[in-house]
Structures are given as C-alpha cells and as structure tokens.
C-alpha cells in the first residue's frame, strides 16, 4: 500500500496519496491515483480538490434533475455518499459549539479543529499516550477514541475550561510551582487526568498515584515533578514556597 518511492518530493509524514485513494474505494479516484505516481503532493491535492468540485457539481445536477437516468458516475456517487456530514452541537467548557462534521471525526479533532481549542493535544491518536485527555461529564476520557457525534449533549471540559478567568486551577498552579513538565506537550492531558484522579478518590500514596496516572505518558520523563505537583495539589499546596 505504501508507495512513497513514487513520490520523491512528498512529505514523509503524510500518507502516500495512493493509500488514501485506494482506501476510498472509488474507481475514478483510483484512476487518478494511478496516473499520479510521479506527481507531487501539491498537484495531488489540487486534483483531489478538483474531484471534490466535480462531485459537488454532480450533486447539484442530480438535485435539479431527479429524473436523470444516471446522474452520477459510480465513483462520484460513492464519494458523495461518503461525506456523511451531520450537524452537531458540542457543549465545551459551558459553551455551545455548533458544527458541521463528518461522523468519523474524533472528539479530539472536533475540539481542536472545529471549536479551535488547541490546548488538548494529539499524541498517538490511538489511546496509548493520554495527551488528549478531557473530561466528559466530569470523568477523564481519551478524546481520540470517541467520536464527536457520540458526545452531543454531554458536558465536555478541556484544559481551557479549568481556570476561572485569570485564576489557575490549583492543579495547574501546582504544575507551574513544581515544574511538572519539560516540553509541555503532555501537560494538558496530565493536568486533566490528575484533576479527575483526585476527584475519583482512589489514589492516596505515591504508588497509587503513579498507577492511577499510568495512562498519561511523558516522553521527557518529568514524572518526579508531575508526581510532586499532584501530591502538592492534593495537600492543598499550590505555591512553590510552601
């Protein structure tokens, strides 16, 4: 499936276009991809955009002429049917965010790219790192492993919703006071997870806190300071001088 060798100037972090095209299963797209082996990624994007426009046009024509015998080429039909866009309103940090999203959009992507709340981070995107931790109805969950459409009607809290105005949440203040991070990428997830962990009330000592926080990985290895911050917050201390 990976044919990056045909795309010398493509960005290695982006999946090869043929892979994307073949996954869609739409014949016209596959035909384009076959002729695209020597094309640049930029050109590929232009072509796919053109295809999108074509599909939209076919949709308009089809809508205007319901009697048309064969209004859509097969591939375009599949592409049109594949959009599965729905209207949804997510309640994030007490505010409604109406959005038009695909059913397959993760809650994480909806938070970041539709609500533009980019504090929640995308790490592994497969439920293995904890960077995307948010609260749903007060419970910590991984926003990468749930669909946005599934969370309509729930109260979602992200890292942006913890502070009260300029006043940091005690856990945030404790992370600052104890230097509970290095690069900071895992920090929003660590803090969201820690706030929820304290509320759950099952972790009381160092060993139990480590266990309860094991779903949040820190690649920098700032664990000792993260632990110190959580313990300080649990004891009601948020000031480094305490």
């Amino acid at each position, binding site marked *: *499936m*990976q044919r990056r060798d045909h795309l010398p100037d493509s960005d290695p972090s982006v999946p090869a276009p043929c892979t994307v095209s073949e*996954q869609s*299963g739409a014949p016209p797209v596959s035909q384009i991809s076959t002729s695209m082996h020597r094309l640049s990624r930029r050109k590929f994007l232009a072509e796919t955009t053109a295809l999108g426009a074509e599909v939209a046009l076919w949709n308009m024509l089809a809508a205007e002429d319901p009697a048309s015998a064969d209004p859509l080429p097969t591939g375009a039909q599949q592409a049109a*049917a*594949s*959009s*599965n866009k*729905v209207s949804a309103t997510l309640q994030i940090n007490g505010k409604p965010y109406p959005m038009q999203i*695909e*059913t*397959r959009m*993760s809650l994480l992507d909806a938070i970041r790219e539709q609500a533009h709340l980019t504090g929640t981070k995308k790490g592994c*995107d*497969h*439920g293995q790192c*904890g960077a995307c*931790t948010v609260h749903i109805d007060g*419970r*910590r*969950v*991984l926003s990468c*492993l*749930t*669909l946005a*459409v*599934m969370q309509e009607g729930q109260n979602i809290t992200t890292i942006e919703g913890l502070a009260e105005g300029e006043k940091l949440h005690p856990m945030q203040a404790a992370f600052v006071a104890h230097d509970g991070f290095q690069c900071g990428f895992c920090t929003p997830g660590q803090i969201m*997870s820690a706030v*929820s*962990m304290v509320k*759950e009330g*099952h972790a009381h000592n160092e060993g139990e806190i*480590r*266990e*309860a*926080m*094991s*779903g*949040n990985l820190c690649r920098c290895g700032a664990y000792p300071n993260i632990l110190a911050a959580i313990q300080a917050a649990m004891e009601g201390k948020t000031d480094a001088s305490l």
Partner: protein
Amino acid sequence: MHPFSYIRATDERAAIGEVTATPQATFVAGGSTLIDLMKLNVMQPTRLIDINALPLTKIETRADGSVRVGALVRNSDMAYDETIRTRYPLLSEALLSGASAQLRNVATLGGNILQRTRCFYFRDTSMPCNKREPGSGCAAIEGHNRIHAVLGVSSKCIAAHPSDMCVALTALDAVVHVQGPKGERTIPFTDFHLLPAEHPERETALEHGELITAITLPPLPFATRSHYLKVRDRASYAFALVSVAVALDVQQGTIRNARLALGGVGTKPWRAEEAEKAIRGKRAGVSTYHAAAEIALRGAKTQKYNAFKVELAKRSIVRALTTVEAMA
C-alpha cells in the same frame, strides 16, 4: 477511516433491527476498541448504531444470590462497585489491571467481552492475517510472536485474547445474556469465545445483530478468597504476558474447590478445568500448586519467541494459588 453513517438507538429492539438489516453495521458503546481499529482500517463498518442510551447500566443482586451486570456498565464502575469488590475481588482486580483510568471510564462490560486481539499482524493491514482476511495466511507464526498464545492455537492463528476482565469472568462461570433478531438467549462464558481452529475470523458465538445485554455472576461464596495476578513488561498500562485468576476454597488444609483461569497465553480466555479437578480434595500447598501448573500448561504449543510463557505461566499459577491460600 472509512466513512459510515451513524444513529443513536433509544431502544434495544430498534438497535438490533438496525444492525440486523445491514451486514456491515455494528453496535458502538465505549468505542475504545472499535474506533482504534477503524482508524487502522482493520474494521470497516458502514453503519454505527450507538447503544449508549440503552438502559443497560445496572448492577443488581438477585434473590438467588447471583449478580447481574448490565452490558453498558463501565469498567471503572464495575471495578469499584462494592458488591463486585467484596464478593468477586478477582474481577475487580482484573478490571483495574487493564488499560488506564481514562479507558476504563469508557470501556463497557459488553465491549470488553468483544475486545479484539493485540496481535501486531491483525492490526496491520499490510500483513497477512487469517483473522482479519480469511485465507491470507498467518504472519505471526513465522514472525515476531513473543506476545502470542501457546494454548488453543491452530495452524491458522496464534493470536492471544487480550482481555483481563474475561479471564476473571471465565473463572467465575459467568453467563452472557444476549438479545437478538430471534429473541433472547444465554451463553455460558466458557462457550462464548471460540478457538481459532480453521476459522480464526469467527471469534465468538454471537450472530450478526445479536447484542450482549448483561452477564450474570453466579453466587460463588468462596470467590471472596480470590486473586488476579498479572505479569507484564511494564508495571502498569500494558497487556498481560501471562495472567492468572484464582479462587480457592480451603478447609482444614484441604482444597474443597478451586477456580483457575489464564490470560495472555490462550487464544481465548483460558479456563484450566483439568487442573482444577486435579487439585480438588488435595492438600493445599506448593507441591499441589506445581502439579496444577503442570496440568494447566500441558497442551502448550510454543513458537520461536514465546516459549518463555510456559514457565512464566507455571510460576504465576503457583504464586497466585499461594497468595490466595494465605488469605484469611
């Protein structure tokens, strides 16, 4: 991820009707396995029926002493439930040893019973896998098979069942309640998961459209003396290399009854019934536990990188039995 349509079901019958009507439709509850595998294109449902609104969230003690747990009870709620903790400690321990707190908050009882294997090759669509693509071959048998099963394997598949909870449920002789297009039925837990044999793609006794609604845990008084031991590469947040679920009824130094099940080593949650039988009526003690361990691993078939699991499983069995015997 392939596109799909999505609806929320508000009653059981409608949900079952929706899935039954579409061959590629599936239920979604917590989604922690399904959405992960959809992102990898390992699972490609065309329609998702969200069952989270169904009233399957209760844990109830019945008049006969059994405990019925609704299929939508989240792993964390089940683990911390007072009845589960006190009457079935091995189940609570198994649940808490699985995944992370975030995942346990969404993962449901029904979903965890249907958890898919973590075999690298099952999860990688560029590799052959008889489970994912029947007839394509098994890349694990000649590949990196350190995490794979040694019990219940076939020439078609050696994928290990990943669930911790299921190991405790098979030890407890749980019963699975299923509602389907043809009505309700119950399936003993030990019959629920199938051995891979010639058809590793067929993993459970469920038919398309059937929905797990609950499980029943039989009253098992001696399960208050039970334990789940999990051995893994990391101290936390890792799948079991080997795990052991044990319940023991010891009176005046004699084993009256025993339950023994294994995880990480079987192609399904592995109940070691022969070993249980062999130690019933015997003196409690390490030599008896060694005998049980030998019997439990008797049929093991190892590969290049997973032979260590046999000895590890035996030692884990002895340790788990010793731990439970020492419980007051």
